């Protein structure tokens, strides 16, 4: 098996695993954040605006971790820099 084939195959497999982990874990944690925020908003409607803003900031932070995983996968699949070193 050529080196290029091995590298590409491993990249594809890694991307699969990375996307699975990078989607499931942030989604679970974002769900927990939203649950707590909704309960707090139901308990204290007066500060609902503050809670909503904080919720959006927190969701953006969590989402950015998922985006990091996605970016690595996109780079590995479409613009793999390591293929240039095998020639």
């Amino acid at each position, binding site marked *: 098996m050529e080196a290029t084939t091995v590298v590409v195959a491993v990249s594809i497999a890694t991307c699969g695993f990375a996307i699975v982990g990078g989607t499931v874990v942030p989604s679970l944690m974002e769900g927990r954040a939203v649950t707590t925020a909704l309960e707090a908003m139901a308990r*204290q*409607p*007066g*500060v609902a*605006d*503050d809670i909503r*803003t904080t919720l*959006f*900031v927190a969701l*953006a*932070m969590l*989402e*950015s971790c998922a*985006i*990091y995983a*996605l*970016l690595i996968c*996109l780079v590995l699949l*479409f*613009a793999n820099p390591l293929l240039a070193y095998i020639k």
Partner: protein
Amino acid sequence: MGQIAPHVVFTLFGIPVRDTVVVTWVIMAFWMAVAGLASRGISLRPKWWQHILEAGVQALLNLIAKLTRQPGEKFLTFLGTLFIFIATANLLGTLPGLTSPTGDINTPLALALTVFFAVHYYGIKERGVRGYLQRLAEPSIVMLPMELVGQVSRTLSLCLRLFGNIVAGGVIVAVLYLLIPLLIPIPLLAFNILIGLLQAFVFTILAAVYIGAAVGAEPKAEETQKTSSINGPAKQAPALQRQRHIPAV
């Protein structure tokens, strides 16, 4: 990734110019024209467009005042421009044939670096160089390396969050155009619009929080009671002096 990646359109004085830069110029020209024309026609008997613009500016002022706990006018030029530019840039990416400027890594990186320098600028302007450096070493001098690393990571995460969201949306729509171009990309284009506006909002919020932390008051062990109003809007209230130290995230 042939034509979805930003590509060079023409060369200006020997420097290759990308299509994202051209779109940035278009955005700048558009908003400068809107601002110039609107400022000319402002009156005490507002027309319809003055109401819209004033509502937008007031919303931004309230948001900035709430997040930075300072009068909103201080940072309105910077943060308002950030929001308007990023929102327009993200939305233009959904139009066919145009590349969103924030889909090129350079634009979000430039914006994040601008926020980085603005945080230090506003902090030093508000507290002086010594006071600001003291605040960096606030809990203890041992935390200073973590604070510095935190600053770098905040800037990087701002950049990558914006870039990643926009590029991911573009790639998904491009792949769908390859597979089922008929009607399926439409919900994803709508999703891209939502994500574009949300990311502009989040970028502005985070920039405001960082500036507020740099400019904020000394931490004191005092009451942090805030008048919560169940009935009326306390949003127009002036900045509240809540003494609380926001650690660098």
